[in-house]
């Protein structure tokens, strides 16, 4: 080197042409440190906002299941705070969300989850205080096929559940079953209250929803039984 490179950057350029091990390691270390700083500061700075999004999404789905709705994030938070109370019920300490109308419980929502075709489906199911009538249902996380299995999150599908009954006339748990085709064509009139239309082209997802409804209702059955006893 007859001419001494002037700046620090120019010296680095010289070294990079025929890099020694020390230069290579040094360069790799600097890149790693800079990149990890960038990534971790992005994650930290945005964390609060992301957590809020997740929380609001959950609240929106609980509200949807119990038949309430709000548009903006602020409205969702306010409505949730005002109308929903979270309880822990049965011996297993299960989460339960209670909608209150003027201090009176109007609906009970609880988390449901189960396997669909490609993914696990997560949602909420809400019952009316009689522990029998379906108040509403919502799904907030799944990876089903758009247009087919993913129809579970659409209004037309969710509306089919409203007003259906999950307790059979003899008092046992009938749950809700999705059928292939239309309920009114394939199920006897007296039993139609326990069935809803399945999604055509999404047999496995429909079957999964049937299974997760039954397991969810079985899990919470002890709570709804005590609830009914208290009523009488």
């Amino acid at each position, binding site marked *: 080197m007859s001419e001494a490179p002037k700046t620090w950057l120019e010296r680095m350029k010289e070294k990079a042409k025929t890099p020694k091990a020390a230069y290579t390691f040094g360069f790799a270390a600097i890149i790693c440190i800079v990149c990890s700083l960038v990534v971790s500061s992005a994650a930290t700075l945005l964390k609060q906002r992301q957590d809020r999004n997740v929380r609001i999404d959950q609240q929106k789905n609980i509200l949807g299941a119990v038949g309430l709705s709000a548009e903006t994030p602020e409205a969702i938070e306010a409505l949730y705070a005002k109308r929903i109370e979270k309880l822990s019920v049965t011996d297993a300490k299960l989460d339960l969300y209670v909608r209150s109308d003027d201090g009176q419980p109007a609906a009970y929502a609880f988390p449901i989850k189960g396997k669909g075709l490609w993914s696990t489906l997560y949602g909420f199911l809400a019952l009316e205080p009689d522990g029998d009538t379906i108040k509403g249902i919502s799904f907030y996380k799944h990876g089903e096929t758009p*247009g087919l299995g993913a129809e579970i999150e659409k209004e037309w599908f969710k509306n089919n559940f409203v007003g259906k009954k999950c307790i059979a006339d003899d008092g046992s748990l009938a749950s809700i079953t999705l059928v292939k085709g239309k309920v009114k064509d394939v199920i006897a009139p007296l039993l139609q209250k326990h069935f809803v239309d399945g999604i055509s082209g999404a047999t496995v997802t429909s079957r999964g929803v049937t299974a997760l409804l039954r397991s969810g209702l079985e899990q919470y059955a002890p709570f709804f039984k005590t609830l009914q006893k208290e009523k009488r």
Partner: protein
Amino acid sequence: MATETAVPASGGGIGLTTREKKILKDPLWDNNPITFQILGVCSALAVTVQMQTAVVMSMALTTVVAGSGLIISSLREYIPSKIRIIVQLTVIASLVIVVDQVLKAYLFNISKQLSVFVGLIITNCIVMGRAEGFAMSNPPREAFLDGLANGVGYSLILLAVATVREILGNGSWFGIRIVPEFLYAHGYVNNGLMVLAPGAFIIVGLLIWAQRTIMGVEKHD
């Protein structure tokens, strides 16, 4: 269009040189990353069921290609050649994570639908291809423009595929109903194939065919 042999050095002003214009124009049609180079097809199949997800995915990818082109090109004279691929990958991966975090914070519902596909931009061949093939041997300004143009070229195809798929598969465009109700009442049914990956395959295939026919590309063998 103009004489492309004349390649003046890139000026510092806002005006683009002939070479820069070519860099910007080529990936849109002549050298489109999806339909001509057949790169990045995987995500083109996955996120094109609806326009909304396709638009966000396009913006995410364009940001990453342009950003990584700029950064890698600025570093190109300092990167030891033995570890250049892993350095490129580190830069790209960091950008992708940042984009993913931003989507989760500001476009939560769409980021939920895109799920893993934003993260998978890291493995998108367009990004690595432009970093290794262009940014490593060209100045930052050109590398940025090249990334931008390739991102837009990718986006054009994504939007074209998503338009066909959403209209035929769902009867809507950007979630707005296009196919009128009375057609459904008369027995019209959405095409279920269009919402599945094979539907996208067919459309991408048709686009490639159309492009090669128009350009008059000869057979490979």
